[in-house]
């Protein structure tokens, strides 16, 4: 569904990604793990067109999408939940969700999509008219994911959904991600919490200073001694 071929991205003179190649198959949860500054977010930015790779190709359903503007990539069916959630703090929960469905012109479908999000995150329904900035961190993450779902993505990119959240809330968020995946959305998950990410995904890639150094199924990688030592703290 998504394929990166030898993608290299840099910010000014600093190289952030070098020759990154991997693919995400339809229907799976794939994860990209790595430490701070390894280039995980840059990978998502390069897919989404927020950063421009200077070499290599990004293919979505066989179509080349690098060099396309971000809003057109979004229209193709890729949604991004940015790092740090990036909810519209001064708008209400409902307005945030409606903006998520910005490309949806059919108001009946929009209502259905809202209902779908409420089922997934009942907490949001209780807070519809509250300013998004006043929500707790976990609720904001739910809102960010709900907002992304409003666009009916076929591929959902999640950037550190566990960041700064209490363990119980993290469990709830990951349960929701599993449900979203079961309903047919392919997920690419970027995480620092490798333990959690490997348990919840099928395939995994390890990113170190801008290069992919290990790859395999998540169970394989979880057993790999190098991964254990570097990322699982064992």
């Amino acid at each position, binding site marked *: 569904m998504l394929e990166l071929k030898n993608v290299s991205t840099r910010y000014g003179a600093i190289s952030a990604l070098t020759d990154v190649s991997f693919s995400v198959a339809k229907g799976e949860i794939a994860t990209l793990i790595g430490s701070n500054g390894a280039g995980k977010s840059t990978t998502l930015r390069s897919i*989404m067109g*927020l950063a421009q790779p200077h070499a290599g190709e990004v293919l979505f359903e066989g179509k080349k999408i690098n060099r396309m*503007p*971000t*809003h057109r990539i*979004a*229209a193709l069916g890729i*949604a*991004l939940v*940015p790092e740090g959630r*990036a*909810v*519209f*703090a*001064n*708008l*209400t929960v409902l*307005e945030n969700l*409606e*903006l*998520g469905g*910005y*490309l949806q012109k059919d108001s009946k479908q929009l209502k259905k999509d809202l209902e779908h999000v409420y089922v997934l995150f009942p907490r949001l329904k209780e807070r519809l*008219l*509250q*300013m998004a*900035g*006043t929500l707790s961190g976990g609720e904001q993450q739910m809102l960010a994911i709900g*907002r*992304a779902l409003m*666009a009916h993505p076929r591929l959902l990119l999640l950037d550190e959904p566990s960041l700064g959240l209490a363990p119980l809330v993290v469990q709830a968020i990951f349960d929701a991600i599993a449900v979203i995946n079961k309903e047919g959305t392919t997920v690419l998950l970027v995480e620092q919490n490798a333990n959690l990410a490997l348990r919840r995904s099928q395939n995994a890639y390890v990113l170190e200073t801008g290069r992919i150094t290990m790859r395999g199924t998540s169970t394989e990688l979880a057993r790999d001694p190098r991964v254990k030592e570097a990322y699982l703290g064992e």
Partner: protein
Amino acid sequence: MKRLLWITGALAALALLQWGCSAILLDGPIRQGPYYYQIMILAGINIVLAVSLNLTNGITGQFSIGHAGFFAVGAYVAASVSYYGGPGIRAATAFLPAVGQDTVVLLLALAAAGLAAALAGLLVGIPSLRLRGDYLAIVTLGFGEIIRVVILNVDAVGGARGFVGIPKLSNFFWVYLLVTACVVTVWNVVRSSYGRAFIAIRENEIAAQAMGIDVTRHKVMAFVIGAVFAGMAGCLFGHYTMYLHTNSFTFVKSFEIIIMVAIGGLGSIEGAVLGAIFLTVLPEAFRGFEGYRMIIYSLALILIMIFRPQGMLGQASLFGKKSKGKRK
């Protein structure tokens, strides 16, 4: 049908006010009548400038400091239309009474002003709105000054002597008609899906893009709509004062408009209206202090910013009536 009724009603009310104001203030017994009349006119023009700038700076969150540039483009283009084209237009519409001829000239001048300002907005907006924050501010500031210096060197519009001999075509009626049109337009734009996109861009550009919003296109759109109204305000300004000089369009004017928007409450339409009235009236109210006038005026601005940094109205009723629990 209902809308038509509203429009007729508004026009009638404005005409009545115009008649009332000029009867009382201009021809009536109040000694300083023309003085008050002029303050009302200038307040109206400032309202249009502030509300239109608010669309870019407050609602879309793009900090532009070149609004006086669009004001100038509109003022000079409109004045040229009525000064050079006026006699021709009058000859072509000789079958109309004098008032009718005036109206045609003014409407054509207004249209030309709006169009020229829109073009200027596109010209500046397309390259510069890819920039962010400080960079955009610097580019728009530079644009405003370029416009002014270019006009200063065009002899056909008076150059450094100023543009003399512009017919007096605008009055209370036209100014407040534009005020109404501007407020209603901006109000409706903010509540449309475009407005939602504008606000999303202000709140978080990356998230807005990721939701499928074409950020550059919407920024340029906000910029151009703002420019059109600033240009039209320029037209009515020139046709009221009958004289234009580039000194009225320096970056100081741009800052004045920004202060109106900030004092009123960035992002709030009502705030921009209030801020414009307040900043037009305040320096006049302090005339009694003579030499200390500008010091007291500046002090008042500083105090407002210290005690109410969100502006007089904050972001009141940006999106309907629910601004409670807003996070600082």
